[in-house]
């Protein structure tokens, strides 16, 4: 597709997960400009800074171009360029040795939320080897909690970025997210809805860009989302403004839920959350009476200690107001018939046998995250990291990762220590990172502009992400890397005979096999739409044990969890640990997103770094004045259980409650070539925790709603 030609070619952006349409201008086989594609059915020409600046990712002078083999000590950043053959032979040999000595389960693989083809690539590696230890490694605090909660409640997912039908909605409730910075297309749709009269409500401890455009902003205390949702449920249930017909026909456990909600009258919810009782009532009435209304739920509700139960409370809210799978509500996808969605392989029929899945790290502790009956089946990352260090419950000796664990996950120190214990660490990456520096082999991955891929997206279409240019240097499609590794282990690409026969190049056609299409058919840039259907549950019911929406969750009951949602006070807070709060007076939230970066990606891209050049910590000016901190000062941050301290740059803002501070996460300094790229200086995850207490269902480590102290005196 236009490989060495000149011209303008369409494809699908992958600077984040949104998958907007782009037009790439190519001159002599090189991309010179990226614009939005007005032909794309959803983005309609929209593009964000990350999308435009992607040419600076592809041609960045620091991009990894060749396989590298470590020659110094781990972390010393000394490398030798090797051929693909040499790297792959070494890796395969070592994996066979580990498998032989410790068993297949001692080999783990993971990807992060990184927008590349890393997810199937790392997944197929463990499937081939027969190890249950694969994960999208952040799932225990991002994505996992609401997926577990919504699966238990409805048997499917309906709150994600792509499932809200804001274009047709009368009221949009944005809960714990800032789509202006994370899903700009969603934010654009919300602005369009607002222009035609829809009401916008934002639930967030910070006055975000999105909140600044809302009609109502509920500033809740971090970590108290469940209490707020239960307060809203209380008003809707006691005032009888729920969808009675839907509840009667499709919900079980209404009376039980009502019994629980009765213990959260708005005044009590107000006391817990800090939101005024009249505002709770106002939002409850607005959301319940607007027909239809939709709810956009993001990680603000998941990075907290009560992540799964608060997601359950919100799931019940969507249900009793009758906003499930209706036009303008929260939708189940309806892709063209037969399409295997991009994460089909987490479904039960594609997974390893139960007796293998039972060995997965976390299966005993968090069966709904990691066990055979989990909706996806992923290891629990903190327990996997601990297993590397302690060899308990069994040794983990090799890891193939396509993400920057040390920067992105809680407790940087422990992760770095654990990775050094491995016999083999292999990283698929675009750039050298603090995590890749600890590896034995660093393998250069292709960007989205260099590969072909099938895209399935909101709410009902498939299309092709088309290869625009040849990979730079010796970069490879990550599926190919995996295939070449397993081939050398004398294994097949997957355990599924049909895909084995097609090979990795046949992956797109495999996903289309039931549709009557081939990838070649849509590679012209076609969009193939499924019929837009609503209330699909009327045909097949809900995918829960009862076939109905389970307000009282039989799955949670079976697994020994509270079948009704409840509030739990954050384990560190001025309320639960008042003595500790005297020394560490601020409530800390970490990792609010910025427009410039996608998690730990993009800090080396000049046009993006210019937008957000420094790691900021947001502090209320009144509190800053007491501490003698001025705007732009570098300050020290400490947490009660974190070792050491980090420095960030103070941004004084009234966007937060005086007792709450917000620290940007995922910070590293790619421009520093000394070992570790400044990993310890400003990365808040140096101070976050991976030890218990874990949230009991998904194993979440709270990263919002902790305590911290801040003081001046740090230098640049």
């Amino acid at each position, binding site marked *: 597709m236009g490989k060495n030609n000149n011209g303008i070619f369409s494809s699908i952006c992958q600077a984040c997960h949104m998958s907007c349409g782009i037009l790439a201008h190519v001159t002599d086989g090189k991309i010179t400009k990226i614009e939005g594609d007005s032909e794309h059915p959803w983005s309609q020409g929209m593009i964000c800074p990350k999308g*435009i600046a992607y040419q600076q990712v592809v041609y960045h002078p620091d991009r990894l171009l060749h396989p590298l083999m470590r020659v110094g000590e781990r972390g010393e950043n000394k490398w030798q360029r090797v051929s693909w053959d040499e790297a792959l032979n070494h890796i395969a040999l070592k994996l066979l040795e580990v498998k032989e000595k410790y068993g297949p389960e001692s080999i783990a693989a993971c990807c992060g939320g990184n927008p590349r083809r890393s997810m199937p690539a790392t997944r197929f590696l463990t499937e081939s080897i027969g190890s249950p230890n694969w994960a999208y490694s952040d799932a225990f605090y991002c994505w996992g909690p609401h997926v577990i909660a919504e699966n238990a409640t409805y048997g499917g997912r309906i709150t994600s970025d792509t499932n809200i039908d804001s274009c047709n909605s009368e009221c949009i409730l944005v809960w714990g997210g800032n789509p202006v910075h994370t899903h*700009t297309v969603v934010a654009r749709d919300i602005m369009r809805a607002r222009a035609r009269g829809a009401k916008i409500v934002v639930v967030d401890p910070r*006055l975000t860009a999105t909140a600044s455009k809302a009609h109502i902003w509920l500033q809740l205390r971090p970590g108290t989302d469940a209490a707020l949702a239960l307060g809203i449920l209380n008003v809707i249930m006691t005032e009888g403004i729920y969808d009675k017909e839907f509840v009667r026909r499709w919900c079980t456990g209404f009376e039980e839920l009502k019994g629980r909600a009765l213990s959260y009258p708005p005044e009590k919810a107000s006391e817990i959350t800090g939101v005024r009782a009249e505002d709770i009532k106002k939002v409850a009435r607005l959301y319940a009476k607007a027909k239809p209304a939709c709810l956009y739920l993001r990680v603000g509700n998941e990075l907290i200690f009560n992540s799964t139960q608060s997601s359950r409370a919100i799931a019940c809210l969507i249900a009793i107001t009758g906003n499930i799978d209706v036009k303008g509500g929260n939708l189940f996808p309806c892709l063209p018939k037969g399409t295997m969605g991009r994460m089909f392989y987490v479904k039960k029929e594609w997974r390893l046998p139960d007796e293998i899945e039972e060995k997965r790290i976390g299966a005993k502790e968090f069966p709904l995250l990691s066990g055979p009956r989990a909706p996806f089946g992923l290891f629990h990352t903190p327990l996997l990291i601990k297993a590397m260090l302690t060899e308990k419950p069994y040794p983990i000796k090799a890891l193939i990762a396509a993400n920057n664990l040390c920067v992105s996950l809680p407790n940087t120190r422990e992760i770095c220590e654990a990775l050094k214990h491995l016999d083999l660490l292999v990283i698929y990456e675009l750039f050298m990172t603090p995590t890749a520096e600890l590896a034995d082999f660093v393998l250069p991955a292709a960007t989205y502009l260099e590969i072909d891929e099938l895209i399935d997206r909101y709410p009902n279409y498939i299309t092709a992400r088309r290869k625009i240019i040849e990979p730079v240097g010796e970069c490879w499609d990550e599926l190919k890397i995996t295939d070449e590794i397993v081939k050398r282990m004398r294994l097949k690409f997957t355990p599924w005979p049909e895909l084995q026969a097609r090979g990795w190049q046949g992956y797109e056609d495999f996903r289309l096999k039931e549709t009557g299409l081939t990838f070649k058919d849509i590679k012209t840039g076609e969009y193939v739409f499924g019929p837009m259907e609503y209330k699909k549950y009327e045909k097949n019911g809900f995918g829960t044990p009862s076939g109905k929406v389970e307000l009282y969750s039989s799955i949670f009951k079976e697994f020994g969890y509270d079948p009704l949602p409840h509030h739990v006070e954050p384990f560190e807070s001025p309320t639960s640990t008042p003595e500790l709060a005297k020394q560490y007076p601020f409530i800390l939230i970490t990792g609010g997103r910025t427009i410039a970066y996608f998690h730990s990606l993009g800090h080396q891209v000049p046009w993006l770094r210019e937008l957000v050049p420094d790691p900021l910590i947001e502090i209320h000016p009144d509190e800053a004045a007491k501490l003698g901190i001025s705007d732009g000062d570098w300050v020290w941050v400490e947490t009660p259980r974190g070792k050491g301290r980090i420095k960030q740059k103070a941004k004084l803002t009234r966007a937060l409650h005086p007792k709450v501070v917000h620290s940007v996460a995922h910070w590293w300094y790619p421009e520093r070539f000394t070992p570790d790229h400044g990993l310890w200086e400003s990365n808040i995850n140096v101070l976050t925790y991976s030890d218990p207490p874990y949230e009991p269902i998904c194993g979440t480590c709270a990263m919002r709603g902790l305590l911290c102290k801040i003081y001046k005196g740090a230098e640049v």
Partner: protein
Amino acid sequence: MVELSLLIHTDLCFGCQACEVACKQENHLGVGPRWIRVIEAGPKEIGGELKMSYIPIRCLHCAKPVCEQTCPTGAIHKRIDGIVVLNADLCTGCKACIEACPFGAPQLNPETKVVGKCTLCVHRIDKGLEPACVAACPTRAIHFGDINRLTELKRKDSANSIFW
């Protein structure tokens, strides 16, 4: 008389900064000059509520440009269609225009050592395209055209908002 200009509906701007990066790409700008820049204003308490706005700051292509009057080498001039352009070949980097402009629009380019500023993407306009910032804005907050037409549209919007 035609007077080409940008007119920004700040109520629609949510601060995504796509305009900034689109401008950089279109005009081949490195780190430093930001010919359009979205400034976060606030949050500030107004009428008991906390308010925050995003204001894109750029060259306003003044009807009587003080930068043009100040420039000692004649590098800046206002075209007949209203666009204030700067001829980099004549610019000495004296910064008189930077001092004179009340909006901080002209900026010294650290690479070329001369001043640059928004050209309204005159090279795109000549091809019948919108300026890059206008094309990239997700909420269509930035409008481009003859100021008299834009003012007329604004009058209509205003009448509608009062009526409703």
